[in-house]
């Protein structure tokens, strides 16, 4: 058995999601190689080679892969993946973009966002916004899988000594191109990697009030998130959304402020180690999953919390 793990990276550094994915691949009990597709991504390859338990790092370093356009990268992965039993990637927005294309090119199903490996061909994954956990068995000889990274602890980033092998294959489908990006510049940690997350919901009333979370986030080194209700209401951008249709997080501490606790939100944060809920409605469902609940008006509680931390 052999597994190809697709590296999540930004050409400069290997992202932590890759380490969780290596851990999931280890649960499949196969030999693990990592594929790095990018441009000028040598430092990523070196970081991947240091990950414990990895045999070989394959590097496709070419301008065609710089922005990991799905049309190009999927052709590469389908070609390289032909020699493996499993092709596994983290369920990040980036990998979710190209992995189903890989599956279709190989004429196999994709098993999305697995949370558990039951056996070589059987996996668990949440469906219906996490209301139900399905156990599914694949009859495909080759399996294309994405991993819900919060379900796995990261594999050690150090201790490995994989060989690095350059790939010559250049696949440029020539049907798409990168125009530009607007990445919010923030001193705060990334939502999915933060040890502390503080999120606001509809109870915040408007986008301006999200500033009330800033001071607390600064003091705790926290990332700021939001519920889908707050995004739908236009308070904050969608990349802050925590939930089944947004980001899945599992920090050491999750503070939910003015969030009622719809199942769609719980699906995105219920694996957090400690959950705090601040809500003025004592019957809000969020209190059923919170370790510590504070029934209070957030407009009183937030300034007080900020001043006392």
């Amino acid at each position, binding site marked *: 058995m052999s597994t190809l793990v697709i590296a999540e990276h930004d050409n400069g550094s290997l992202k932590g999601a890759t380490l969780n994915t290596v851990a999931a691949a280890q649960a499949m009990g196969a030999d693990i190689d990592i594929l790095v597709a990018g441009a000028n991504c040598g430092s990523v390859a070196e970081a991947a080679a240091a990950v414990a338990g990895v045999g070989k790092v394959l590097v496709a370093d070419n301008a065609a892969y710089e922005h990991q356009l799905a049309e190009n990268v999927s052709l590469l992965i389908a070609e390289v993946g032909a020699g493996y039993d499993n092709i596994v990637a983290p369920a990040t927005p*980036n990998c979710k973009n190209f*992995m189903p294309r*890989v599956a279709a090119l190989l004429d196999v199903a994709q098993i999305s966002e697995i949370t558990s490996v039951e056996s070589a061909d059987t996996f668990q994954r*949440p469906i219906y916004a996490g209301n139900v*956990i399905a*156990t599914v068995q694949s009859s495909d000889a080759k399996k294309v899988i994405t991993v819900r990274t919060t379900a796995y602890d990261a594999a050690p980033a150090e201790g490995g000594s994989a060989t690095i092998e350059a790939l010559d294959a250049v696949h440029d489908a020539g049907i798409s191109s990168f125009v530009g990006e607007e990445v919010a510049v923030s001193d705060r940690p990334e939502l999915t990697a933060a040890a502390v997350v503080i999120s606001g919901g509809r109870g915040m009333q408007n986008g301006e009030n999200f500033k009330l979370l800033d001071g607390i986030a600064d003091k705790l080194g926290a990332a700021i998130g939001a519920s889908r209700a707050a995004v739908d209401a236009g308070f904050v951008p969608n990349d802050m959304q925590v939930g089944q249709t947004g980001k899945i997080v599992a920090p050491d501490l999750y503070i939910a402020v003015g969030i009622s606790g719809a199942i769609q939100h719980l699906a995105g944060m219920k694996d957090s180690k400690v959950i705090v809920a601040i809500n003025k409605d004592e019957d809000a469902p969020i209190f059923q999953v919170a370790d510590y609940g504070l029934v209070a008006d957030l407009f009183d509680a937030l300034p007080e919390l900020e001043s006392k931390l």
Partner: protein
Amino acid sequence: MKVLVAVKRVVDYNVKVRAKADGSDVDLNNVKMAINPFCEIAVEEAVRLKEAGVATEVIAVSVGEKSCQEQIRTAMALGADRGIQVETDAGVEPLVVAKLLKGVVDKEQPQLVILGKQSIDGDNNQTGQMLGALANMAQGTFASEVVVDGDKVNVTREVDGGLQTVSLNLPAIVTTDLRLNEPRYASLPNIMKAKKKQLDVYSPADLGVEVTSHLTQVKVEPPAERKAGVKVADVDELIDKLKNEAKVIS
């Protein structure tokens, strides 16, 4: 240009779905069904393209049992010009849905295919991308803005930490994210009109596709429950608990 929109019949998003006691499947008896919310956004985007004079015809397609004609009618009430149902049993896998849609694409030759990024039942997030690969079309997934410009379309996408814009050769695939638009409500006169619009039914064989199954659902079960903790009296007690009991802040 012609725009094809895929719509899926799913459990209404307000329904809390449960596993059956025997774990064989989810319990969908007497549950309200609706058009998948992301598909609704896809229909709205297509109709806006038509209203802007960019699209000439909007075709709504759904794959499923006869009951999915209800959701095709909903799409037509929202402004789609005609509908296509590909008749299959329930629970067809995304790869097969993508193959069937590829069959419809071959027949209709749309310049743009708009789909929801995922359906709220299976949560797979696969069909649009798979169709892209099968039809060798470029894709703009998780779209928050779609601008057709000559023989290209610029799609702004929701990615980690912000937005990315890609330029795609037409014909192309777009999958919708939440902020792309806010779907309208169908008016009663439009609901009545939709009943008279053309709706063609194809079988998978008509499209030259064999319905296969790659995955078996072994069982379904409720997720592990997280047990409720304690209520604290005030902010001071909260900080004390976090510092001294949970030890997550210092």
